[in-house]
């Protein structure tokens, strides 16, 4: 049956589906946030006391950002289920709010992680490329956020801006997954690794679903 012809859901159905979806997301978030505890990286194992808490906090912030970043394309993918629950117009509002939360949350990640190391500088050598990739990604995320916030001040036609914004967003997400995989030993085996690869696969599939909208 054509989904557009399907009967609209009652408020009760919407609340129930919304709650179930919210719970599913919360479960995913809880699983992700538990990674620094259930699969601590070697750097967490070698920290004590306050430093350990700071490092764990930084990692939790980073994982949350990745998960919220992964939600961004979902929110603008116009899934009929999301449309029925939240209404079609609220997609973009959620996308914007989520983007705002991301930009607020991301500075916590490097600040807490580096605070655990007393802000010791990272030597600029090849082996620390995952750390430097992270720095570049934070800058790009802010650029992406600023570009969206002050879109009208950018001398780009809306369709072109949208293509640039969406493409950069996808690349940013994939690069963030690469960063997470190589920067932390937590993600190099077991469930956390599967979690990252599943996110990468879902992102790729989503890109193919949205490619016509993105590239035209």
């Amino acid at each position: 049956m054509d989904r557009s012809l399907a009967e609209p859901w009652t408020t009760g159905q919407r609340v129930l589906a919304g709650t179930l979806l919210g719970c599913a997301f919360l479960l995913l978030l809880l699983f992700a946030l538990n990674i620094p505890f259930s699969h601590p990286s070697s750097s967490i194992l070698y920290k004590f006391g306050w430093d350990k808490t700071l490092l764990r906090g930084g990692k939790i912030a980073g994982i949350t950002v990745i998960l919220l970043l992964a939600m961004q394309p979902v929110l603008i993918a116009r899934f009929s289920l999301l449309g029925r629950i939240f209404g079609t117009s609220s997609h973009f509002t959620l996308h914007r709010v989520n983007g705002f939360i991301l930009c607020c949350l991301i500075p916590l990640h490097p600040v807490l992680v580096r605070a655990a190391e007393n802000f010791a500088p990272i030597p600029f050598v090849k082996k620390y490329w995952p750390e430097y990739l992270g720095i570049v990604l934070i800058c790009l995320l802010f650029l992406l956020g600023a570009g969206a916030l002050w879109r009208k001040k950018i001398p780009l036609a809306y369709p072109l801006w949208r293509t640039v914004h969406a493409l950069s967003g996808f690349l940013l997400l994939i690069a963030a997954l690469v960063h997470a995989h190589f920067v932390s030993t937590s993600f190099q085996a077991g469930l956390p690794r599967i979690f990252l690869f599943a996110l990468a696969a879902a992102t790729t599939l989503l890109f193919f679903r949205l490619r016509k909208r993105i590239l035209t």
Partner: protein
Amino acid sequence: MKKLLRLLAVTMILALAAPALSQANQWRFDEAHTRFFFDARHTFSLVRGQFDDFSGSVWFDPEKPETGRFEFTIPVKSINTNISKRDSHLLSDDFFSARTYPLITFKSTRVTPSGDKIFLVDGILTIKDVSKYVTLPFTFLGQKANPLNPGEIVAGLEAALTINRLEYHVGTGQFAEIGVVGRDVDIIVTLELLRDK
């Protein structure tokens, strides 16, 4: 008067040349084949690391060891144990505090022969805020025309030394107490030195 001036000139030349004549040969590092290794115990196993970057000067002549001089400067940030996470942890305040103490230095004060091909190099080893007198017992491995570059002479020297890292404030002892990182660290210096013929 002319004779006096000539005598003065000869005396001055000899005076200037004398230290140079008595000084040992100056060598440069074959950087690809000179290494500053360290071994530390991790729980049970041995972790080997090295410093990828170093500089310094070596003056050494096995015939005149007393004229020898060894100076090494090692940037701490060049530490390499093959695991970047471990390296960044070693650079942190938990171990080397590389931001505050970026260099490890060794400056010899005396070189004395000790048995067959053994030369004791006394000097000051500075790690972090601690400078201590140590003796590097170098084994002279020999010298010969460089087989790869006949215009050069190549020489080999090797020394090993064990230090207690806690005496140099490399760590607070927290990791040693829980039996994770040993106190004693073996330092292995292997020098391949070059000079023109």
